[in-house]
């Protein structure tokens, strides 16, 4: 029995919030994407299948709309707003990601809808939150990453900070929104009452600073970006290291927890003839403090990194991954997307799933369930819907409109 079976979700979100509804849909909720006539703005965002610009071919839509149904509804028309109110009266969740004030301007804000349905959980996803001095700021992925702190930490030190080339900000926000929706649902089961969840992407992306956003209030040094790593004061700490056939990510750090791994690695490098015993036997636990206090010259650290680099460069990514597995070293290959899809690990766990192509082509491969539940495994039972694919099913079959009413609404441009 799916966990959220028979829970109805009205998903009015656009490209800012699609993932939230999909998470609830994966948990078995009946999620209805409510799109403007012509389709969600998310459907106009590429890449597109076969590079053909078409609302039925947006890979962003395909990515985050499985297990949902779709209806169209024009919120600019009073009849459209009335229909939404009728749908919301019987819904368990509503998700929206318009600019703050959009729903209130159409008398569709939380308070408006909760009057008729006090148990509604109403989720708003926005860049900066529903209120506050910058609530109405114009947003974009890059803007939110800049505002929320992660951007300044990533990139080459001789160039501007740089983002991940796949937009991330609203995915962080949408995942936080799904948590908030489930917290509110948990409470509603006891109290019978819903509430409004207000999620600001700018806060959600701050998690990607790994708490470095706290440096100022904690009165400590701000980290600085460095190609393939980061800088802490005078220390250049690489994370990405060259391999024979590409790159690896390796934790080569110090302190009472991580220094143990560095010590283990240096013992191996000595065994393999990459360094002498004096280098091997440095105090890897206290090494950062030695460097920061000047007891160990930075030039010596540079020499050590050169030794480690000689080792990584002499091996392929696969060889280094095997060493990580056999000896517990902290390193893993930097994979291309193609390599990710060919991963033996993911294949052995039967991770990938295939979904029917809504544009009528072949099946395509998508990431599998976000966790493996033993009792309630996540199923992908429905491909992403076409624009308004379930209009008749939902408006006539479930909301009880007559054929004549339905045709009128279609003719009037409401549906």
């Amino acid at each position: 029995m799916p966990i959220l079976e028979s829970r109805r979700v009205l998903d009015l979100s656009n490209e800012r919030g699609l993932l939230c509804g999909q998470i609830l849909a994966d948990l078995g909720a009946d999620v209805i994407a409510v799109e403007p006539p012509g389709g969600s703005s998310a459907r106009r965002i590429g890449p597109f299948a076969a590079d053909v610009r078409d609302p039925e071919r947006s890979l962003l839509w395909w990515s985050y709309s499985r297990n949902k149904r779709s209806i169209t509804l024009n919120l600019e028309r009073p009849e459209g707003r009335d229909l939404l109110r009728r749908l919301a009266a019987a819904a368990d969740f509503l998700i929206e990601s318009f600019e703050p004030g959009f729903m209130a301007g159409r008398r569709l804000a939380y308070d408006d809808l909760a009057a008729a349905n006090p148990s509604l959980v109403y989720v708003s996803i926005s860049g900066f939150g529903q209120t506050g001095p910058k609530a109405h700021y114009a947003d974009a992925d890059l803007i939110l990453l800049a505002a929320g702190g992660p951007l300044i930490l990533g990139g080459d030190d001789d160039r501007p900070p740089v983002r991940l080339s796949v937009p991330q900000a609203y995915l962080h926000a949408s995942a936080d929104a799904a948590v908030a929706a489930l917290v509110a649902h948990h409470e509603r089961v006891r109290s019978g009452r819903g509430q409004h969840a207000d999620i600001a992407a700018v806060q959600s992306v701050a998690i990607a600073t790994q708490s470095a956003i706290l440096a100022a209030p904690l009165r400590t040094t701000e980290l600085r970006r460095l190609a393939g790593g980061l800088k802490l004061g005078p220390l250049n700490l690489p994370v990405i290291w060259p391999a024979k056939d590409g790159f690896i990510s390796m934790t080569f750090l110090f302190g009472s927890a991580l220094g143990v791994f560095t010590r283990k690695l240096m013992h191996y490098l000595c065994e393999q003839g990459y360094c002498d015993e004096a280098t091997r036997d440095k105090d890897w636990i206290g090494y950062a403090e030695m460097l920061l206090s000047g007891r160990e010259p930075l030039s010596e650290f540079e020499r050590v990194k050169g030794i480690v680099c000689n080792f990584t460069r002499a091996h392929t990514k696969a060889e280094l991954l095997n060493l990580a597995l056999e000896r517990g070293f902290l390193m893993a290959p930097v994979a291309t997307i193609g390599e990710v899809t060919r991963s033996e690990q993911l294949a052995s766990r039967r991770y990938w799933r295939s979904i029917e192509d809504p544009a009528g082509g072949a099946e395509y491969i998508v990431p599998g369930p976000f966790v493996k539940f033993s009792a309630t495994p996540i199923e992908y039972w429905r491909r992403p819907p076409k624009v308004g694919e379930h209009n008749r099913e939902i408006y006539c079959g479930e909301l009880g409109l007559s054929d004549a009413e339905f045709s009128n609404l279609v003719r009037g441009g409401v549906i």
Partner: protein
Amino acid sequence: MNSDGPLADVKILDFAWVMAGPAGTRMLADYGAQIVRVESPHRIDTARTLQPHQDSNFGADSSGLFNNCNAGKLGVAIDLGNPCAREVVLDLVRWADVVTESFSPRAMRKWGLDYDSLRRVRPDIIMLSTCLFGQTGPLRQIAGFGNMAAAIAGFSNLAGWPDRAATGVFGAYTDYIAPRYTAIAILAALEHRRRTGEGQYIDQAQVESAIHFLTPAILEYSVNRHEPQRAGNTDRDMAPHGIYPAAGDDQWVAIVCRTDSQWRSLCDAMGAAAMALDPRFATMETRVANRAQLDDVIGTWTATRGATEIEQTLQARGVPAYQVQNSAQAWRDPQFAHRGHFVEIEHQALGRTTVEGPRAHLSRTPGRVRRAAPSLGRDNQYVMEKILGYSQERISELTIAGVFG
């Protein structure tokens, strides 16, 4: 501990450590879940050794990362390898609704604390294991951190400049994604148990959760057979879309135009209304094609101005812009202040410290930071006496037996 909040009835025994696991249960602590976080008295939680350290002090209580991921939890120190510890842990399992752990797959079995063992004492227990690659498969025993998972999941290669090797994403990127799915999975399993009385086991591979944040890139490959490439700060469909220099040391401003009208507003703000008519830049399509020239023009204008000033000037005209904030700037940002993002709390060893507040705002049952993260073993006495109801004599016996280290 009498708890309130929307999750006041949820009790979690949390063996997870470092970042991904603890950050997930921290989200639930904000809403009142009672969480007993178990640490080893002998092997320090790696997070306690990581940046940022309050006042640059490297002591075990001063990691802002640890304190951020564990705020609101009770902390006990228990040596799981001690034979007398097992009964204590099983009593905690009887108390708990949910058990979480993030060791490598062998560890819980070694201590006799795998799902089957726990189910024998608490048949409806929910157990969630989270690790880089999951409980099965050839890489299941890989020890490591989220930077490695980010590399192997495809994130690291997609951050950086097309003319250079990948810069990689900052830090343990999958540790920022997996916690949300940890919280979601726990709440979902609690809902299933409420409806059916049935507990379950949840196997979370952090890589598998995180790949959901790369799905469009996966589809670009699986549908179009096109290998996604890193692209600096450009966007395939938007220009300008970049990070531009501002006056001052390492000061930058992000500027994006999603529409032609935003571009005209930007030209207006730059005092270059004529440029809006320049055919090289007149439409989104031509701006995308002439991106490099466009960036030069904008960068020349921004370089002599303050980032905050640029942000305010452009946002006043509806153009997406923001200074690229470091910690000091975010800490002073009025929107972060309005959202209550930085929360000051009392900490046993530090006096006052600062953590991040709840990210989602719930109107009727808001989250809050209920207490500072524990110093090692801070709540041993409280948990043994008030939660487990142990007598003082029993607690002393356990102490002498070395259960608490």
